[in-house]
């Protein structure tokens, strides 16, 4: 059991931290949030050049054969600068599924350019009525000639507004809510019959509402086995939850560090407010929660590579709960301790606060993960 970073990991962390500090401080995000796309293709290409988009993919797919935890370490550092380039939707969700299920041709055509930062991807799984139930899918794909025609609406598609290709989850058989009969299709962002409505989010990032009206794709655009997509999408969402914990850790740490610095600097009643015990104790509790978040974040990142589904889900759900519970404690108290200026848009803390709240609600919120956890075999087992 070893929690230390390897030499390579330390070098990676240092270089991402340096990138955030020099090239992507929060000011860059402030400019991007006013743009249509919300992120910058030139920066995306640089991330690709650095190799950061490929760390977790096998070498034969154009990646670096690393483990998910390496990607998590990158995400954590990027979180400290609120880097808005779409790593979670493009690399973790869509990229992960392509790498796992894609044919050689699909990988070469769609995954490798993304790893190089030349294109970006998205995964469309959620629908108006589905909340976190992935199999609650009403979008349908019907056979048309040798290929398929897709119809339905998808909501909150992260990076759906900008992606070159979108993996769309659609029902090829069965009724909505059936676990079987779901399939994934690779749809071009500019496909005929696809309307993309850009949706601005609380965190200053963008997602999309997709309307598919008989979007035709060839047989070569089916990803993986027909009708068997559900467990794979759930696998990808688990990894995305682990990724949310990793990015969130960057934001939690940043909020915590900024708060402690502010407690030392801000004076009231003629003394630094950090000398007041009521605030010291709150800061101590924030420290505890930050460290608990870090512990589970590491565990979730390692568990993301577990083959044992039950173990993976158990650890990732624990981490996601801690992100919601402990992370929330840090973010709400950060704003409280900053006082009035904490709720101004001018101050960066609010930006971190909002991004964290979005991450907490993505890929299963706290309640959803608790419900899933209590249903795991290991929870109820008499041992």
């Amino acid at each position, binding site marked *: *059991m*070893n*929690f*230390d*970073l*390897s030499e390579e*990991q330390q070098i990676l962390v240092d270089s991402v931290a340096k990138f955030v500090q020099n090239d992507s401080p929060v000011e860059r995000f402030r400019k991007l949030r006013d743009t249509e796309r919300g992120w910058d293709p030139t920066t995306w290409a640089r991330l690709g050049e650095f190799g950061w988009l490929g760390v977790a993919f096998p070498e034969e797919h154009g990646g670096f054969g690393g483990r998910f*935890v390496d990607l998590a370490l990158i995400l954590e550092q990027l979180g400290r600068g609120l880097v808005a380039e779409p790593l979670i939707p493009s690399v973790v969700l869509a990229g992960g599924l392509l790498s796992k299920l894609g044919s050689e041709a699909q990988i070469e055509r769609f995954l490798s350019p993304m790893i190089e930062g030349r294109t970006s991807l998205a995964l469309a799984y959620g629908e108006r009525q589905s909340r976190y139930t992935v199999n609650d899918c009403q979008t349908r794909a019907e056979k048309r000639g040798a290929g398929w025609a897709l119809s339905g609406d998808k909501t909150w598609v992260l990076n759906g507004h900008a992606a070159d290709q979108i993996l769309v989850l659609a029902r090829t058989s069965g009724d909505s809510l059936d676990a079987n009969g779901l399939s994934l299709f690779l749809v071009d962002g500019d496909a005929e019959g696809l309307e993309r409505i850009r949706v601005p989010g609380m965190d200053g990032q963008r997602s999309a509402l997709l309307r598919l009206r008989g979007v035709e794709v060839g047989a070569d655009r089916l990803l993986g086995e027909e009708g068997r997509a559900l467990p794979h999408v759930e696998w990808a969402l688990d990894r995305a939850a682990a990724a949310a914990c990793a990015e969130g850790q960057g934001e939690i740490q940043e909020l915590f560090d900024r708060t*402690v610095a502010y*407690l*030392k600097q801000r004076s009231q009643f003629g*003394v*630094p407010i*950090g*000398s*007041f*015990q009521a605030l*010291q*104790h709150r*800061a*101590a*509790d924030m*420290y*505890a929660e930050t*460290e*608990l*978040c870090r*512990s*589970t974040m*590491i*565990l979730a990142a*390692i568990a993301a590579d577990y083959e044992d589904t039950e173990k993976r889900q158990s*650890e990732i*759900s*624990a*981490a996601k*709960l*801690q992100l919601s*519970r*402990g992370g929330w404690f840090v973010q709400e108290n950060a704003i409280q301790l900053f006082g009035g200026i904490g709720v101004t848009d001018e101050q960066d803390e609010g930006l971190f606060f909002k991004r964290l709240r979005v991450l907490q609600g993505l890929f299963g919120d706290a309640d959803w*993960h*608790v*419900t899933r*956890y*209590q249903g795991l075999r290991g*929870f*109820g087992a*008499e*041992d």
Partner: protein
Amino acid sequence: MDLSVSPEQVAFRQEVRQWIQNALPAGIKAKAAGGGHFEHEEQMEWHKILYAKGWVAPHWPEEVGGTGWDIGKRHIFGEELVRANTPQLSPFGLMMVGPLLIQFGTPEQKQRFLPKILSGDEVWCQGYSEPNAGSDLASLQLRAEKDGDDYILNGQKTWTTYAQHADWIFLLARTDASGKKQDGITFILADLENTPGITVKPFLTTGGTDAFSETWFQNARVPQSNRVGPEHGGWTMAKALLAHERTGIGGIAESKRWLQLCKRIARETPVGKSTLFDDRSFRERIARLEMRLRSLELLQLRTLAAAQVGRAPGPESSILKLVGTEIQQESTELCMDAMGHDALGWLDSPPDALPAIEQGVASSFNYLRAATIYGGSNEIQRNIIAKQILRLPTA
């Protein structure tokens, strides 16, 4: 970073599990199956069995009787003890004064004391708090005056946990009252059994057991060779020992036992045609606590992995104490909730009225209110974090 489970670890877990099953005496095994509220004698019986196997102090360096296991194996060992619900050993020798002696003791002291801590031939207790020195521990007043080669001790200690079972006490005494209060304290070991002038008087807690004692010293004579660390250097010793104490005081293993018990109670509690364990809202309460405990367990592993064997962990261990004791309390609260109307019962309720596995719950639920108070109250832990880690200014 590597948390993978090796085939060697799988085999090790199997070995430990098998050994525990074979080694647990029948009486203890029966009690463990029934919920497990163990007496001192049973604790020591199990201590000696572990000692004979060489497994009583896995966290000690190998050269003084540790097992040489890495963090991973130690963790597996701990998990298996919890799983079998074995008696928990007295922490004062193994977890507290032992590691301190390993860190600061003279070769003679190590030679004299460590083997008997390991063997269980000598049981220890802690003499820190006094009636007027609780959270403000440094204001303690028990005096140690030099007389020839001895110290003469006069004063009173309180909250000396299980002093009635102990052979030795480690204590903090005032050796200088002239300067800063932290600078006049000395760490001393005293033979409780054979030193005239020491009186131990246990008292009942709200848990209904005599877990704590008051201990009086009246011209009690102790050789100066029983001092650990330099004269007036006791505060440093106290802090180092507290850091050792805090890594265990979080009670992660205990909380796991409580959650295990809570599930058992819920399974055996009928609600209409099903059981309490089939009630999703109750399961989710257990789940939330179990998931939080998992976060803390990982933090503990990170802390242990960062600290070298035998070296005192840093102030980060305050988090373990702070969060761990809160979870410990919550887990007993949850057991009480699981019991429903059975929570009216008490230690001596007849088994027909109160099932055996629930027998000790109310007592521990009450006793463990002390968990957020002892070992440096949780408010003191927050002060430590604020000052020593966050470096926040003092008022």
